């Protein structure tokens, strides 16, 4: 399940919904990751663009990878502005085995940072500035600049 919200995530409601929906399905472990906007560099907020069609394909490949291990993957992300100290990203993995949950949480979050088609902007004095210095080219970038 992939959820997109306009603005901050309702984190406590999401965690509650996810736990209540899954705790009785015989998973032994739930792990979660929540990303919250840090106050730094004078920002008021971060702002996000998402390209949903490619995000859905990327998420679906992870969902299947987890399902093959008997585990369930859920994530939520914000688009638009998210103020300092609010949260823009939450995910959960439910798994029969704790090792799968712990290892896949790490692998999923790192691949999310590197390959999910989401763009981040600092919001400073109401202006939206691309966070180029914190961004990572997706796998396969540079194809159209290749000389052959």
């Amino acid at each position: 399940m992939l959820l997109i919200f306009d603005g901050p995530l309702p984190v406590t409601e999401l965690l509650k919904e996810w736990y209540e929906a899954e705790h009785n399905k015989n998973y032994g472990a739930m792990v979660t990751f929540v990303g919250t906007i840090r106050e730094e560099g004078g920002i008021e907020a971060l702002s996000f663009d998402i390209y949903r069609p490619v995000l859905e394909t990327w998420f679906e490949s992870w969902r299947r990878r987890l399902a093959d291990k008997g585990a369930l993957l859920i994530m939520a992300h914000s688009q638009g502005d998210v103020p300092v100290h609010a949260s823009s990203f939450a995910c959960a993995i439910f798994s029969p085995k704790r090792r799968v949950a712990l290892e896949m949480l790490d692998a999923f979050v790192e691949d999310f940072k590197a390959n999910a088609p989401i763009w981040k902007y600092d919001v400073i004095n109401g202006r939206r500035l691309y966070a180029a210095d914190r961004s990572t080219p997706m796998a396969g970038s540079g194809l159209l600049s290749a000389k052959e």
Partner: protein
Amino acid sequence: MVTVEFLGPIGKAPLTLEAATLKEVAERLRQEPDVAPWLSQCAVAVNDKLVKSMDIPLKNGDRISLLPPVCGG
């Protein structure tokens, strides 16, 4: 005719152009001064599927997307 769209911070309106291959698209985009600097950092999707090769035939109505460096979370 194919359409090229520029996602996220590139901030450019879509282009419509004649191209039979991704290589022809690349040649044309290298001539656009507001796009050329992005090319080395962008991933490419054809009809929302990421591609790893320029040897992809294009057909009328195909949609090519340029995805610049990402930072979710």
